[in-house]
């Protein structure tokens, strides 16, 4: 216990967070997802719009080390698909063509692209030899023969960043308006409170729909992206503003704040040295818990066809393909983006829970 005495509150919070195993795992998963999103051009073997006419609606492939004869190969490989039309049902059926192995090559040449839109290159993390007949579609392909794995990665970039960007904007509005409401009080507080109540009483989905429908269809994908982000955060700030206001009001009366005032500290010092540091951790926690709502909001709008539209690739846009029942029966792998949404949302919620417990300076480390 004695060395605990020397630790800073930040170190103590880290200790408490580390004991939250699920939150640690969730944090790891999110870090991996965000790395994928950041480096999606490099990690994905194809560009999102590249079509493969020989594999339309192809199911996910297995990555193999053992060939059809049971022989081990140190370099992983895939088999190509052989397309058969079932003469009774006229369904396309894919069968593995085990006659040729296509070795997976790393850091190899493939479709040229511009990394982050800046550096032209054609290296990909993994491909199969582009000179050969082979192809690798780890998550299968869609009805146009586009590689689902690549599309999920590119979609992650849009969907995951919209969560962070939206929450950033929400935080800005919420902390600013809530902070001023709590600090100034009076008329300003009253106006902010009433606006909050009005915004919270409107059902969000119809409102989002109305506003998204108002975005000009002629806007570029980037403009639409920012438009959607702003729409999502315009209605997200209210909860945060309320919390910030409440904490400001409560903290103004805290003894240590009164003590600072009594030794002569001015408002700026009190706000920035005493009040803000005490609830930065709460703001981070609230923000973490707000990210999934943003991601789900974007997904919902895009799924309904009024958010982002193709050619932009986001998880919501990808799920649009899975809107009918035929897809679910015939090509269930098109639902994979949904699995990523679920994992991301759960991970953010677990991480938020862990952060909330860790941020509480009064929760004890000595118990358990």
């Amino acid at each position: 216990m004695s060395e605990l005495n020397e630790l800073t509150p930040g170190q103590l919070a880290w200790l408490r967070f580390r004991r939250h195993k699920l939150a640690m795992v969730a944090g790891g998963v999110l870090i991996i997802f965000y790395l994928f999103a950041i480096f999606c051009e490099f990690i994905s073997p194809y560009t999102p719009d590249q079509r493969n006419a020989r594999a339309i609606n192809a199911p996910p492939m297995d990555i193999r080390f053992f060939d059809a004869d049971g022989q081990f190969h140190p370099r992983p490989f895939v088999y190509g698909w052989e397309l058969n039309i079932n003469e009774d049902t006229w369904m396309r059926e894919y069968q593995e063509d085990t006659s040729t192995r296509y070795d997976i090559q790393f850091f190899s040449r493939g479709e040229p692209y511009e990394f982050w839109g800046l550096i032209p290159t054609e290296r990909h993390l993994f491909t199969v030899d582009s000179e050969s007949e082979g192809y690798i579609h780890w998550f299968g392909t869609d009805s146009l023969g586009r590689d689902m794995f690549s599309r999920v990665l590119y979609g992650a970039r849009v969907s995951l960043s919209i969560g962070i960007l939206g929450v950033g904007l929400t935080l800005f509005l919420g902390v600013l308006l809530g902070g001023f409401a709590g600090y100034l009080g009076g008329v300003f507080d009253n106006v902010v409170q009433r606006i909050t109540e009005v915004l919270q009483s409107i059902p969000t989905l119809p409102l989002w729909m109305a506003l998204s429908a108002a975005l000009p269809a002629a806007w570029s994908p980037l403009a639409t992206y920012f438009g959607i982000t702003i729409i999502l955060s315009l209605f997200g700030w209210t909860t945060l503003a309320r919390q910030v206001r409440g904490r400001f009001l409560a903290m103004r009366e805290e003894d240590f704040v009164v003590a600072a005032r009594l030794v002569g500290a001015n408002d700026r010092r009190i706000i920035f040295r005493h009040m803000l540091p005490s609830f930065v951790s709460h703001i981070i926690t609230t923000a973490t818990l707000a990210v999934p709502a943003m991601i789900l909001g974007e997904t919902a709008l895009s799924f309904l066809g009024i958010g982002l539209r193709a050619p932009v690739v986001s998880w919501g846009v990808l799920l649009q393909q899975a809107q009918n029942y035929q897809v679910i029966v015939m090509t269930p792998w098109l639902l994979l983006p949904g699995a990523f949404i679920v994992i991301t949302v759960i991970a953010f919620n677990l991480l938020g829970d862990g952060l909330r417990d860790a941020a509480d300076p009064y929760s004890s480390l000595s118990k358990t």
Partner: protein
Amino acid sequence: MTQLLSVKNLCKSFGDQLIVNSVSFDVNESSTLGIVGESGSGKTTLVRSILRAIDPDSGSVRYNGEAGWQNLHELSAKELLPLRREVQMIFQDPFASLNPRMTVQTILEEPLVIHDLGDKAWRKQRVMEMLEKVQLDPSSAARFPHAFSGGQRQRIGIARALILEPRLVVCDESVSALDVSVQSQILDLLKALQSELGLTYLFVAHDLRVVREFCDEVLVMYSGNVVEQGPVEEVFNSPDHDYTRLLLSAIPSPDPDEKLDPLDRATLNLQLA
């Protein structure tokens, strides 16, 4: 004896609830005035309006500081700043009154930084001196408040109040959150510091035994009014007001066999004049 503080007809109400009703008293330098009364009698509101943590509705608080007699409520925030060095406060709750995110060094140094006193090395030295003065290990400076017990935290609170070398120190229930043995240690410390530094205390308490031992004069408050005031022995030995008698009758005796027999409120004349 020089007068240090003079409060005249101080009133404060919240909404239509009158919390402090026309309170007047004087405090002499290097003495201790106890303010007693039950919960809700307006003690805390009274001392906080003296410190200008709350603005009173009417009345005056005159303080005889380095700059001579000044009415605290007529001063602007800027004019008040030098007086903040002379009037300080020790809080009730040692857990709430220290910022949990600052080290003891930062907490104690802050008043010096605000008043722009000395350089970094001098301030560090001063913090060490204060820690020694309140009988804490100087190595505690690098720690955070969570590492200390209630009594130790209260010592830190005392060090913070005294680091600016104030003349008047307001103790708002400063020992009531501590257990009895720690209480007496803190009271001894406050007494020692008083005789060493010539401090004047305004000592708010609800524990009459503590007041009897610690204070020179006492002021009894009942629902916002002063019902009795005078030297401690006089008030305790021959109380004039029924409310004071009620409070005195509620002090438990150190003898466990003696039954506590407080007076019955209904039989007393608690009407305010």
